[in-house]
């Protein structure tokens, strides 16, 4: 009789444990699991329905005048603004497809890009942007404003752009334009 009672108790306990395990696996403890839940949902939506291509406008200097010129390009939209901004810089680094001039030395790499809550984009380039740069005020201006205008025009929350080199603040690219303050876009220097 004691044995029988013990058996019943044990099986009841086992049944309870199984019930608890099933309950937990079905998502009963939603709280701590939430971040995973969202990120996986994002992955799903990206893989399931490919988004419409997005048209962006890049700004390049031209051989014919001292202005910046628009060049349209289609990109695949990214989930975050920083990712989208990175794509814009990579497109700018790859140069013009319509015969405009390249304002950034081709050896330059984008190291990092992040956007603050206040709308300042910090763009961190490898040191080639400075070391291989063609010196001269006009050259520095076209490099800086092709970057600043391309980012600000396409991503409205970006109000200012701060250019970093090799992870840190530098004074100038080649002794002229001040890199220690963030830049606002200038559209006066864009061809109509």
């Amino acid at each position, binding site marked *: 009789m004691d044995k029988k009672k013990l058996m019943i108790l044990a099986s009841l306990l086992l049944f309870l444990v199984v019930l608890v395990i099933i309950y937990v696996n079905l998502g009963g403890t939603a709280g701590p699991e939430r971040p995973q839940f969202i990120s996986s949902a994002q992955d799903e939506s990206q893989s399931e329905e490919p988004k419409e291509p997005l048209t962006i406008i890049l700004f390049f200097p*031209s051989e014919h005048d001292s202005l910046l010129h628009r060049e349209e390009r289609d990109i695949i939209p990214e989930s975050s603004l920083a990712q989208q901004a990175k794509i814009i810089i990579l497109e700018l680094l790859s140069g013009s497809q319509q015969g405009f001039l390249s304002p950034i030395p081709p050896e330059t790499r984008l190291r990092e890009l992040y956007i603050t809550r206040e709308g300042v984009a910090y763009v961190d380039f490898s040191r080639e942007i400075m070391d291989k740069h063609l010196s001269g005020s006009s050259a520095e201006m076209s490099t800086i404003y092709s970057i600043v205008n391309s980012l600000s025009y396409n991503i409205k929350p970006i109000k200012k752009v701060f250019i970093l080199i090799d992870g840190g603040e530098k*004074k100038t690219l080649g002794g002229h334009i001040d890199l220690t303050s963030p830049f606002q876009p200038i559209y006066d220097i864009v061809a109509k």
Partner: protein
Amino acid sequence: MYKFRRGIPKWTAVFSALFLFLSISSAPQNQSILIISEQDYEKYSRVTIQSDRPLSSSVEKSDAFVFVKIRANSPFRIQRESFRSRFIKSLGWSQGSGSYTLTINTENENFSIDSFKIQNPPRLIIDIYPNRGQIPPTSETDRIRTSSQTLDPECIVIDPGHGGLEIGARGKFGTLEKDLTLAIGMKLAEIARQTRASNVVLTRDGDVDVSLEDRSAIANNNKATVFISIHVNGSYRKGAAGPETYFLSKDATDEEARRLAFLENNSETLENNIQAEDEDLIKMILWDMAQTAYLKQSSQLAEDIQDELNLLWGTRNRGIKQAPFKVLTGVACPAVLVEVAFLSNPQEERKLLTEEYQRKIAQAIYQGLAKFLRDNSR
């Protein structure tokens, strides 16, 4: 024995006669001069002591007097110019052992002094401000007016761009921007020195590195009337040509203007609370935004210089431009950056290499500068 003893005074006499003769004959050439002059301005009186050799001095205020002590290893010839001042009652002069003392008597102890030295020729300047409380200007227009009041003595600071390891732009034929800026800057300084009675200072007169901060500090330490930075342009475009004159863009000064407003609104609290070690930091912030107050005058200076350069190069379309140039941000006077031509353009490079063109460019910049100084003199 007797003869030998008599010989000594004889030789001594000959030597001392010779020494006396030499010292008399050489004295007038070696004697330095001190010229003391005084001038009244709206808010202060300025005493200037000019010499032909560097002055070692101390300035001290005591009650209603200012004592200016000038150390001297050899005597000075003193030249006093007549003066008539509202604030200074008398100027006294006395000679001590190895020094001279100028006593300025104001008959009123309620004043403060500011003294500084400038070179070419060496001058010691003592400004006397009666009741300092009224002196700091409160608005931008006041600040500009104050700056034009202190146009005397005029000081032109010329900044040949780059230098040393900083070569700047490089032309197709191997010409370096740093060499051209120095050649043109030296010529401009020469023309200015020959034409005007002003203090002309170069931020560098050789192939040396000078940081961008030091260049503006040189201008501010010399209380510059104008600051002209000389550069030669470089562009990705092979066809880019012609001169361009820049002044600092508003954009670059927006942030500084906000900080200025903050400082102005809180200056009373700040003045009372600043620790000695923090004072340097405050000065640094103020220097950072120094150019903000001079943008209007700077744009006028840029226009005057660009007009002359357009005449020289036969260019028309290139106007004055604004850009956030690092070297201009801290300069506390009208300041421009002149891109005399494009080194990336082989035709312009060839012209820039000739002494003749360098001189023509220097002359054109000088004419623009002279017009600006004429229009802005009191």
